[in-house]
């Protein structure tokens, strides 16, 4: 089926119903992120990917887990929040769809299912738009992500120049596309292949990293790092969180919020011992987690090649240069 780009806006306006929040990539006050589509928003499908990743929809930066208060005879009561709502994200890119696969692995497998994430994930419908052109920092093709394909998206819109090739990939997708009848026509068009200027070879990098724990490469890399949290908060696959509470007299809310392995108190223990005290251990841990640890544990790389950290790092620390340096080592 085919959707012309002119029909895109009418389709979007038609989709924004009352019972579902539609998120589109747009500029909000100078920050490009996925925001709620209402009358005023101008979706920006030309920009390849947003500065703020879509993980905010599934795993908000601050998520209230439960509220506790004291009942009549003075004992605590716990009320769980379920703030998940029916959501549709329109215009998510294949690299971000691939990051959702990583988040699903973390939150939904290995003996414990995180029900906050599970509720949100179940109620999320993803309409993915493929990329016809890539930004200079995109390298998703090197991280086995096809810029025009997202297997786990509900509906895939392959960019074919001035039309989209509409493919419904899940039952939820079929239901969705059925409702688009007035805007789409029959036919199949060849998608545009997306050229990427930045490419790295991951050949043997994962195994080489295994033995490079004490290699001087980490020292040269971590010296220039500021240890701020920009790369971890902008990365679509970073999922570390902290749990804390906010009190008002005897009742309070316990919430979980994003945390970064780059912060010094991330692994600080009560007795004062910190297994990762210096920048070197933290930078090494972050890149090893992206390229090796996650691969060993879940069988897929935790880097999807979206290029956000390459673009926004204040000191231009570049994961692709690390991959090249590791590949170059004998």
């Amino acid at each position, binding site marked *: 089926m085919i959707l012309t780009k002119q029909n895109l806006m009418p389709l979007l306006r038609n989709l924004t119903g009352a019972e579902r929040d539609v998120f589109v990539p747009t500029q909000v006050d100078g920050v490009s992120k996925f925001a709620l589509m209402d009358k005023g928003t101008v979706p920006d499908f030309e920009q390849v990917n947003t500065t703020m990743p879509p993980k905010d929809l599934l795993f908000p930066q601050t998520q209230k*887990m*439960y509220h*506790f208060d004291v009942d009549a005879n003075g*004992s*605590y*009561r*716990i009320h*769980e929040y379920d703030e998940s709502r029916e959501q549709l994200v329109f215009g998510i890119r294949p690299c971000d769809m691939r990051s959702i696969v990583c988040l699903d692995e*973390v*939150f939904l497998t*290995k*003996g*414990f*299912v*995180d*029900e*906050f994430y599970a509720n949100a994930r179940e109620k999320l419908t993803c309409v993915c738009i493929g990329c016809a052109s890539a930004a200079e920092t995109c390298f998703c093709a090197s991280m086995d992500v096809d810029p025009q394909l997202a297997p786990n998206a509900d509906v895939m819109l392959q960019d074919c120049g001035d039309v989209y090739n509409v493919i419904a990939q899940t039952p939820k997708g079929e239901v969705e596309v059925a409702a688009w009848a007035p805007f789409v026509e029959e036919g199949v068009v060849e998608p545009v292949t997306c050229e990427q200027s930045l490419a790295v070879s991951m050949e043997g990098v994962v195994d080489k990293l295994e033995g490079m*724990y004490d290699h001087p490469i980490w020292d040269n890399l971590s010296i220039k790092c500021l240890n701020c949290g920009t790369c971890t908060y902008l990365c679509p696959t970073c*999922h*570390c*969180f*902290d*749990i*804390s*509470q906010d*009190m008002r007299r*005897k009742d*309070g809310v*316990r919430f*979980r919020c994003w*945390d970064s*392995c780059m912060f010094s108190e*991330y*692994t*600080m*223990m*009560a*007795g004062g*011992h910190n*297994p*990762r005290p210096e920048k070197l*251990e933290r930078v090494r*841990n972050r890149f*090893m*987690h992206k390229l*090796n*640890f*996650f691969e*060993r*544990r879940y069988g897929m790389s935790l880097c999807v090649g979206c290029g956000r950290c390459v673009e926004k790092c204040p000191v231009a620390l570049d994961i692709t240069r690390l991959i090249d340096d590791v590949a170059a080592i004998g």
Partner: protein
Amino acid sequence: MSGIEIAHGCAKGERPLIPQVCRVVEITQETPDVKSFRLQTLDGRKPFDCQPGQLGMFGLLAYGECMFVVSAQSDEWVQFTVKKVGLVTEQLHALSVGDEVSLRGPYGNWWPVEACKGKDMLFISGGIGLPPVRSFLLYCLEHREDFGRIDLVYSGSKYDDLVFKEQLFDIWPNEPDMHVHVSLYHEDPQWDGPVAYTAPFLETLELGPEDGNRVAVLCGGPSLSRTCREALVGVGFDEGHIITTLEMRMKCGVGKCGRCNMGGHFICLDGPIFTLEEIASMHSDV
């Protein structure tokens, strides 16, 4: 001679981050800064069933929660032993019997009780490292016939720092075929026993590996683990027969919040119990 088989990533559960409200039924003051708390649910039941060595996230709703080993359990309660070192533990030490706390669990794997059947057991721990070791020791004493000779090597910096003194000096020495060796790091007027650090003290006891029939269980601070590992390997122990329980900062307890990782393994989910052989193969920043 392969090492001891340990189950990893075997804890299961629903709604992992939501605690249940429990009540403190008994508090025993072990040392000036260590207390043991026995917990029951509000209606008097055992909060959860757990294997020896498993962890529980015990804390106060107003201040936070920390991960502790279930140092003892019975049919009605679970017991945690808490040393006062930080914000939450300080508030825990201010609790009195009947107060309400938050508890969730059980998390982590457990001591390989099946794999160690029929073997001699050598428990080594220092200071606040005794509670995790005690959970295994109590299991061995309950199933005494399944295990051979049991040795406990325990040391602390001062006499006051020794935990579970009553069991240490009165109950355990009289257990069949069980030998308790206690030492202090420094001279102490109340103590006339041996004064030595754990590793040299261990060497004086000549407890050999009995060609694979003895399993060493180790739990203590980073320095104790390192020195005792060298002492044990020096005496001939194979690293696959030395089991330890690791400690790192934990927040979720279910291998998702990412901070207690050693390499690709999460200590709260795949651990905390590993053999030294497994730890050697991981990227260790402990």
